């Protein structure tokens, strides 16, 4: 049988990673080479020849990537406006490393892929992924930032706290937060088949719970709780709060038909930022006595400001929240947002001394915390899917009526999916709030719901690996590729076309039309439409996963 020179996956891997290397360059070339190697290894034939071929192809791909990286270093990074990430943009180290590591990756992955026994193959792959995940932040971050000479490892932490817009580690942490959300939405939309368009609401609730209970915001309030509760405690509270709101919204609306549910959740997602904006001055009285009081006793005092009457109110009504008339209770700090939110701390509780505290901007601990959270959640959801509950969800998605006839309580099962999905979003929100240390209503707009939905749909509804992959692709495109493209296009146009033109307005016009980041929303929209038309089951469909799993 004649073998094609390249199969589709390989061609895409090489092409896409080459472009990525061209636009990101520097040490990112290594990441690109590794991803290309990974994909090539995965698509190799499962035999000796396959491994060899993968090695050769991997080497070729890595060399192409390195050449692109070289072009970036020598030309792209000199364009005006392009973020000059690596101070050593002309050194050959990253390029040589890219070739070596990329080739090794494709060989190793192809070898793992060729292991016949399924259980062992999976184990090996898992180990490989763990090793990659553990090495990654050190590889990416320290050399990038602290490259002051040939031996950078000698002084590994210097510069690691420097913040750079295009840090992969930061991008990956944010990606993991979104992946966590996507996993939750996957339960709701992927397993149970409920289209939830207001998923960001639960993310916001989780984040605000964290912001409220784990910052100085609460301390400043007029309550007896003059303390911060700490990340480890509040993260559960966030999940519980999100789950509670999931129950509150889900209980009345889940019996509705699917598209009505979509609208109700959409509305809910719109309301939460409004609430966050407006819950800065909360004052709640017991309503019935308040009503009587307002209607009768104050008829004469209508011209007076309500504030002046507050004392009179208090005499006749039962005050619940915000009783001090000069200081109403502040839940969300309105549009100015809550900041700073405390990072996690080990120890410093119950008499145990403070062992270690996370620092915002020091990415590596955050990276591992996010990794553990994500891996734990994926593991949990995997077990859930493989249980009685998970089967009930999927059967309900496949055929609600038949599932009902097989003894599944539809409303209860839907509600369970909704609540657990909300819980994961709450988790993600809590982590997010603590990580960025600042939340405001604007961070929880509708487009987050759609981004997360795009992740689930791109990767493959109902498939954990697929969803995580979808999250990575969309976020990398969003945080890295689009940003780079914008710089690149601006740089090129400025250098090549506009160097002789003295018309700042025209330059401005072209730049705002060609601003790649401005088309982010369109890109996600197109992902949804194109995936629905071409491959509604996603890149890694759930079925192959079900078939792979052995009893």
């Amino acid at each position, binding site marked *: 049988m004649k073998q094609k020179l390249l199969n589709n996956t390989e061609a895409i891997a090489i092409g896409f990673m080459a472009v990525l290397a061209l636009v990101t360059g520097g040490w990112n070339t290594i990441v690109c080479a590794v991803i290309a190697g990974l994909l090539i290894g995965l698509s190799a034939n499962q035999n000796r020849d396959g491994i060899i071929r993968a090695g050769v192809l991997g080497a070729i791909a890595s060399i192409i990537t390195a050449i692109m990286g070289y072009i970036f270093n020598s030309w792209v990074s000199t364009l005006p406006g392009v973020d000059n990430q690596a101070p050593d943009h002309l050194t050959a180290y990253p390029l040589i490393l890219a070739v070596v590591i990329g080739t090794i990756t494709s060989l190793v992955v192809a070898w793992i892929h060729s292991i016949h026994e399924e259980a062992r193959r999976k184990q090996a792959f898992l180990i490989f992924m763990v090793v990659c995940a553990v090495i990654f932040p050190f590889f990416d971050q320290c050399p990038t930032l602290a490259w002051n000479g040939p031996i950078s490892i000698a002084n590994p932490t210097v510069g690691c706290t420097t913040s750079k817009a295009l840090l992969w580690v930061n991008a990956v942490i944010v990606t993991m937060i979104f992946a966590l959300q996507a996993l939750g939405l996957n339960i709701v939309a992927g397993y149970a088949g409920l289209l939830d368009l207001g998923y960001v609401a639960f993310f916001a609730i989780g984040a605000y719970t964290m912001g409220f209970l784990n910052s100085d915001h609460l301390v400043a309030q007029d309550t007896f709780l003059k303390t911060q509760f700490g990340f480890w405690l509040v993260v559960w509270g966030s999940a519980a709060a999100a789950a509670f709101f999931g129950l509150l919204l889900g209980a009345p609306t889940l019996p509705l038909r699917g598209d009505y549910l979509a609208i109700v959740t959409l509305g809910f997602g719109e309301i939460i930022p409004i609430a966050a904006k407006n819950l800065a001055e909360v004052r709640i009285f017991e309503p019935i006595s308040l009503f009587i009081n307002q209607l009768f006793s104050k008829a004469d005092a209508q011209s007076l400001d309500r504030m002046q009457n507050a004392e009179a109110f208090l005499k006749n009504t039962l005050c619940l929240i915000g009783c001090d008339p000069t200081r109403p209770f502040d839940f969300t700090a309105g549009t100015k947002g809550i900041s700073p939110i405390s990072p996690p701390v080990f120890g410093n509780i119950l008499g145990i001394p403070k062992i270690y505290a996370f620092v915002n901007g020091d990415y590596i601990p955050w990276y591992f915390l996010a990794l553990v959270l994500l891996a734990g959640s994926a593991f*949990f959801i995997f*077990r*859930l899917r*493989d*249980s*009685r*509950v*998970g*089967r*009930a969800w*999927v*059967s309900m998605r*496949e*055929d609600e*009526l*038949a*599932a*009902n*006839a*097989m*003894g*599944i*309580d*539809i409303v209860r099962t839907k509600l*369970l999916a909704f609540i*657990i999905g909300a819980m994961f979003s709450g988790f993600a929100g809590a982590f997010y709030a603590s990580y960025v240390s600042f939340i405001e209503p604007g961070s929880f707009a509708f487009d987050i719901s759609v981004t997360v939905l795009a992740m689930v749909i791109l990767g493959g509804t*109902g498939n954990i690996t697929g969803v995580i992959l979808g999250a990575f692709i969309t976020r990398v495109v969003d945080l890295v590729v689009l940003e780079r493209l914008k710089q690149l296009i601006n740089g090129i146009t400025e250098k090549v076309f506009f160097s002789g033109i003295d018309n700042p307005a025209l330059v401005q016009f072209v730049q705002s039309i060609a601003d790649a980041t401005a088309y982010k929303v369109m890109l996600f929209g197109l992902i949804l439409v194109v995936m629905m038309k071409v491959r509604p089951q996603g890149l890694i469909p*759930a*079925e192959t996963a*079900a*078939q792979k*799993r*052995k*009893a």
Partner: protein
Amino acid sequence: MAQEVLLEAKGVTKRFGGLTAVNKVDFVIYKGMIAGLIGPNGAGKTTFFNNMTGLYTPTEGDFIFNGKPITGLKPHIIQDRGISRTFQNIRLFGQLSALENVLVGMHTRLNGTVFEAFFRPKRVIHEEKRAREKALDLLDFVGLGRDSAEMAARNLPYGFQRRLEIARALASDPKLLLLDEPTAGMNPQEKKELTELVDHLRKELGVTVLLIEHDMKVVMGISDRVSVLDHGEKIAEGLPKVVQANPKVIEAYLGTGAAAEGA
């Protein structure tokens, strides 16, 4: 054959707007029998089934199962009480494997909760293991074989899908199994095999079966008693041979015009 009554329908009537789909049907099933329910297209057989299994609530009348009324209960509760069914146009969970389809059928007989799904205590591991073994046995029993257990249900051949649906319905150890046209769309050979399977069900699992069929050949071979519906009313009931010779039944099936222009 005079034994315990398993299910009794008393004057069940279902109206949709002005249309009376099922009209005052009385019906009794005894434990251990295979009861056939036949009738031409649109006679109200499936509507009767749907009333019994809780998809519809009867306009009038009651169903009494095992001595307790089940009228108007939700489908999942009725299934829990011990009535399980298949569907006229196969309704499997297409993306789930055959094995998982059967496991879903076992839903009400398992106890794992969300937390147990995560922590997997010994009890749940055992439960799952036993459930899987039982499901595989059931797949064997209906003739699916263990090789197809991991295949997605929608990729199974048609005849296997029918059998899988029966296995799924059996998974909850029902006292009464309702089969809605299990041989529809099959060729004579497949029909014969399926008929044998239904016979096996009763003999080996001791399940009581209520069978809706259009094809008289299938019903006559295995039913202990046959009831005939036409226009929502029960027009005949009794032993297959007797029913087959009933002129009302022949008329319902072959039509009334026979006398007019037959000669």
